[in-house]
């Protein structure tokens, strides 16, 4: 068994309104940042997982995303795996 750290980035799917992102974006010019666009707000979920290998860990984390961590109607996710320091 190997241990992995997984970073799950949950994002709103393209075309789904992101009122948090657009509200942040609209406030930026007042702070002097008038060159920023495409602000998106999502979630970052970190977890530790033990599996036989990286492919196994990735498969489980992606299953977890499908079943629980995201709502596929409005969200998708990107999984980044790194080997945990032993």
């Amino acid at each position, binding site marked *: 068994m190997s241990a992995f750290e997984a970073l799950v980035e949950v994002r709103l799917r393209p075309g789904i309104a992101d009122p948090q992102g657009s509200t942040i974006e609209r406030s930026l010019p007042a702070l002097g940042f008038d060159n920023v666009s495409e602000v998106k707000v999502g979630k970052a979920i970190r977890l530790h997982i033990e599996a036989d290998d990286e492919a196994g860990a990735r498969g489980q984390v992606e299953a977890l995303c499908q079943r*629980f961590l995201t709502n596929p109607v409005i969200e998708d996710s990107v999984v980044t795996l790194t080997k945990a320091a032993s």
Partner: protein
Amino acid sequence: MSARVGVVLFPGSNCEHDAVEAVAALGGKAELVWHGDRALAGFDAVILPGGFAHGDYLRPGAIARFSPVMDAVRQFASDGGPVVGICNGFQVLTEAGLLPGALQKNAGLKFVCTTVELRVESIESALTGDAQVGQLLRVPINHFEGNYTCDGYTLDALRDQGRIVLRYVDNPNGSMDDIAGIANEGGNVVGLMPHPERAVEPLLGSVDGAVLLRSLLHAAA
């Protein structure tokens, strides 16, 4: 025989007693059902009430969907039993896959707490059988994530099959196609963001929710 209505109590629900009182005021019998229970024996209808089930952590309804009682709710619904999800209960039903689509954050990022006007669009559901198409109802809303969304294919199906049961007259949250409430294909599972249980007594400012809950009691009988 008055209809027996089970009102599911999740940790974090906060409208369960309103639902019980409203059902009783309309002549039904309502009892709380703990979310950890695995059976709904003896009930004629089920209400998933408003609130913040499991703290709304992750997403509203995301964890409630896995509460033990939800297997029984799913079975009850597939046997044709009337199930109504109000506000957070609607969110739970979409997360559980008993209704299509999802409820995202309100457009404008505002928590809305006001009384709105609804138009009854279909009477082919467990919640609208006693109402009339086109009837206008004043019912309170109280939510942050009530902005209904779904893919185009689903929206077409909802429209074509008459499953949009309630629309907002003046859209308060950005909801797609002004949707305030939808039903499943059988019409026995209904979810809505407005709170009919808070509009059943003149003292509450409106009695327009009564026709909806009375419809539910008739569907249950």
